């Protein structure tokens, strides 16, 4: 049984300007210890997918319209708040993009760091602080003993992200959801944080969902990658096949538009047009208006993910029909 099994997740936001379908039928599953990368451009629904699983979508305006997210036998979307609270923050934790805004500026790091322990485990403050200290040391904060009582603003961006990671991992979760954890950081600091997540994963054996828009970050870290577009998964495969033999026109276009995958100075491939407006209902394939291979059938029929190789699925009708 997979650790996490998401089926047909649909999340939308009901606003004055209409209904925004942020996630529109996403299914995936994750084994214990596996690393899944979710990539996509802004607005593709990758973050909303994670927030929905964690129960962090503000409702209203958000609404989970359907689907299930089964974590170790418990459907996180339809269980009691009590059950969610016993799992969230203990067995599933999350780190966020911006460590400047996701730490509470009014609380000392020590308070925030041991909060999950005090809530989820029967543990004294003193021994919780001891574990907090150990955790800070293992994420690479020097003189953790002194720094643990500092406030977040006394840390640099990279250090704050380390504190976030320590906070997420202090309960030894089975699943870590990382939502663009390195986007706000410089490259040399990003390298430190990626190495840290890899090392901690090896130590704790947890599964990781890594959300990013950077295909480069995914390639070194993840076992499997799924590409999202306009709230749907368009392609999912093991990392090697996704980079070596992408099949969906969007994935191919995305890879051809990255400078580091092209010869220097060559004109970059550009995907024409813009992502669709999420407030309008999409008929057929969401990528069809920008796709150079689109045919009549693409605009009429909504494509489903179908296997094109072992563990490699994609949602393009024409690829499935063997036409391209």
């Amino acid at each position: 049984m997979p650790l996490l099994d998401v089926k047909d997740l649909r999340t939308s936001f009901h606003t004055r300007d209409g209904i925004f379908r942020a996630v529109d039928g996403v299914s995936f599953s994750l084994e214990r210890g596996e690393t899944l990368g979710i990539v996509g451009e802004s607005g593709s629904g990758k973050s909303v997918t994670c927030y929905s699983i964690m129960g962090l979508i503000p409702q209203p305006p958000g609404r989970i319209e359907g689907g299930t997210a089964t974590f170790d036998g418990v459907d996180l979307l339809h269980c009691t708040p009590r059950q969610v609270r016993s799992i969230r923050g203990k067995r599933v934790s999350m780190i966020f993009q911006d460590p400047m805004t996701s730490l509470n500026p009014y609380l000392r790091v020590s308070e925030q760091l041991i909060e999950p322990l005090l809530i989820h485990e029967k543990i004294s403050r003193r021994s919780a602080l001891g574990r907090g200290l150990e955790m800070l040391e293992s994420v690479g904060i020097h003189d953790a003993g002194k720094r643990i009582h500092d406030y977040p603003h006394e840390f640099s961006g990279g250090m704050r992200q380390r504190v976030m990671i320590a906070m997420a991992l202090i309960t030894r979760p089975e699943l870590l959801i990382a939502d663009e954890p390195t986007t706000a950081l410089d490259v040399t600091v990003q390298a430190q944080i990626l190495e840290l997540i890899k090392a901690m994963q090896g130590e704790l054996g947890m599964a990781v969902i890594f959300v990013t828009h950077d295909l480069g970050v995914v390639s070194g870290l993840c076992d499997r990658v799924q590409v999202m577009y306009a709230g749907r998964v368009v392609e999912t495969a093991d990392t090697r096949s996704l980079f070596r033999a992408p099949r969906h026109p969007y994935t191919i276009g995305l890879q051809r538009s990255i400078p580091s995958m092209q010869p220097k100075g060559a004109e970059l491939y550009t995907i024409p047009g813009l992502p669709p407006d999420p407030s309008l209902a999409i008929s057929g394939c969401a990528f069809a208006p920008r796709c150079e291979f689109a045919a009549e059938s693409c605009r009429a029929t909504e494509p489903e993910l179908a296997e094109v190789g072992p563990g490699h699925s994609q949602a393009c009708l024409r690829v499935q029909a063997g036409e391209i």
Partner: protein
Amino acid sequence: MSDSILELRDVRTHFPVTAGFLRKRRVGTVKAVDGVTLTLGRGEVLGLVGESGCGKSTLARTILHLIPATAGTVVLNGRNLSQCSARELKASRRDLQMVFQDPYASLNPRLTVFGALAEPLLVHKVCPASEVGARVAELMRIVGLAPRFVRKYPHEFSGGQRQRIAIARALALEPKVIIADEPVSALDVSIQAQILNLLSQLCRTMNLSLMFIAHDLSVVKHISDRIAVMYLGRIVELGGALDVIDRPQHPYTRALVSAIPTPDPDVERRRQRIVLPGDPPSPLNPPAGCSFHTRCPHARDRCRSEIPPLVPHAGREVACIRLGEF
């Protein structure tokens, strides 16, 4: 150099740091840019890379005299901008334009596209008022926007389109030099490719010189002829784009290059990443000697006392006193 259009000689930009509420006293100096010497050739694309806080944006603003330089000279087309009168400076700005990082912030939300593009034309009296409309339409076509959008406001456009408007505004005065400060960092990958293509095409067709500032090395390598790497207000390596990225010499450039994740799972698995310890030091209190010595895997005692000059080495210039020793 006679074929250079823009020349920086030992440019320094320092900011005083004050403390106290009523009686301000000076408690220190942030040396954001600390002795940069650079030339930009005609039609050349120079990439400027570095991490946040290294002074690359301050350098850009200093070149345009949006921030006064503390010392050093900026020579544009033979004219020393540091000694210009306000009137001469305004005239020089015709030749020197800037594109900013965030197209959501750099366009006036109350001006239509027409307003934004016509303003520089009218301020500098480039063409008679009757021809402004035609010129604006032409500018929009150059950057790939349909002229029928001319009466729209910035909020009606996407990020990529807004960046096109910002580029059109910079082109309005037919400048010789454009300084682009992280023009694609706020954009998605597929949109980023469109803007990169547009910029390199403009440089070729209009013989523009471009100073392209970014933190993404793969983007900079793609577009630049030469690359300058900055660390804590100084240039540590300067040379041909392929030399600097594919065969970096300075320990900082090496670490920076090895830190970029590549979208190739096999390369990623094989590679030995140089992970630098710690964060970049604060420019308020930079380390003595080579400012990189606190994080450098090759630092020796003399690195802590001597400030390394940029010296020619292996076909480029590098600022490290231990060159060839590691």
